[in-house]
């Protein structure tokens, strides 16, 4: 018995650039970075943003999108900002809790990527859940050409957890061009041996400043560009 979705996804995603925003620690800013990157990259290209944190979706809140979708020739994604198209399980589950076992996570992953009509979206940002479980293994398995952009907060716990994850990515010979160090915490930690060990795996390290009242920008994200932070220039350079 052959699952039709495996070939379906291959076809659907051929010729698309896939960037996986990841990091096995929770709360380090993966969803936030996905949001900020889509905001910047959408100046240049249509961006599909895919929330793979099926049981703890955030992006529909960040993008303020309760819209359900239209089912025409496949699932047509809502345009949540100019040139940004969002795929979230919340469109289906509404605000109900959805607990899923690993195998079911794989099924949701395959199903959503099969039935979505990506049209002329050429850049896909995949936001991922924390932990090193089925969603990440499914990305390894079904999206072999994806690039991994790794996010860590500036905390000891995060550096250690991220380092383990990065060891795995390297073992699997994955592209890991960029590490984001998200300065959620006021003071960078002292005794940064583990940070040094982490950072040396990357070509580029981008520091993300703490943005005061960040969540209040969800209603009008473009206002973020008025803040005097160099981050947005740096992010823009990441677009190739």
């Amino acid at each position: 018995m052959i699952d039709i979705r495996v070939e379906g996804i291959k076809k659907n995603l051929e010729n698309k650039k896939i960037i996986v925003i990841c990091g096995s620690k929770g709360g380090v800013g993966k969803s936030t970075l996905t949001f900020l990157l889509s905001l910047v990259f959408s100046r240049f290209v249509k961006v599909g943003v895919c929330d793979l944190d099926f049981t703890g979706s955030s992006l529909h809140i960040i993008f303020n999108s309760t819209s359900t979708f239209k089912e025409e020739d496949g699932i047509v994604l809502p345009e949540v900002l100019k040139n940004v198209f969002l795929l979230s399980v919340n469109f289906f589950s509404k605000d109900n809790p959805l607990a899923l076992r690993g195998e079911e996570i794989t099924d949701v992953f395959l199903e959503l990527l099969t039935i979505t009509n990506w049209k002329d979206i050429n850049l896909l940002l995949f936001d991922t859940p924390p932990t090193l479980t089925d969603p990440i293994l499914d990305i390894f398995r079904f999206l072999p050409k994806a690039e991994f952009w790794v996010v860590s907060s500036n905390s000891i716990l995060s550096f250690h957890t991220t380092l383990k994850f990065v060891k795995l990515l390297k073992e699997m010979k994955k592209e890991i061009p960029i590490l984001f160090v998200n300065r959620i915490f006021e003071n960078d930690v002292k005794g940064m041996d583990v940070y040094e060990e982490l950072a040396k795996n990357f070509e580029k390290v981008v520091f993300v400043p703490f943005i005061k009242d960040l969540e209040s920008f969800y209603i009008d994200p473009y206002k973020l560009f008025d803040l005097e932070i160099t981050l947005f220039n740096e992010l823009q350079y990441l677009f190739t």
Partner: protein
Amino acid sequence: MHEFSLARAAKETILSLNCNRIIVYIGQIQQIDIDLFKNALLSELNGMDVNVSFQEVKAKFKCNVCANEFYYDEIDLSEEEKEDIHFLPESIHIFVKCPKCFSNDFKIVEGRGVFIEKCETK
């Protein structure tokens, strides 16, 4: 009508198989419009030398907690719930509980999605 997307996925799969007789199994839980899906697939396959037959598979569940087995035909769903499950079968965990122990930790054992069986190779 995401049936068209599914039909395209089925076509890609059939192309990859290189054979001239296949069976398409369609899981009941997704409540796919079978005529729509058939027509979509046959038109995708237009001109290809492949014999396709279709078969629906009844959906069956098994509770992970108490091992109770139950069937799609036995459960009550509103039209809206059916619609959500149509798109994403896993939404069923929101609406359905094991009739015996009331857990929503159950497995879809059979009848979830669309599968293809290869019968004769060219």
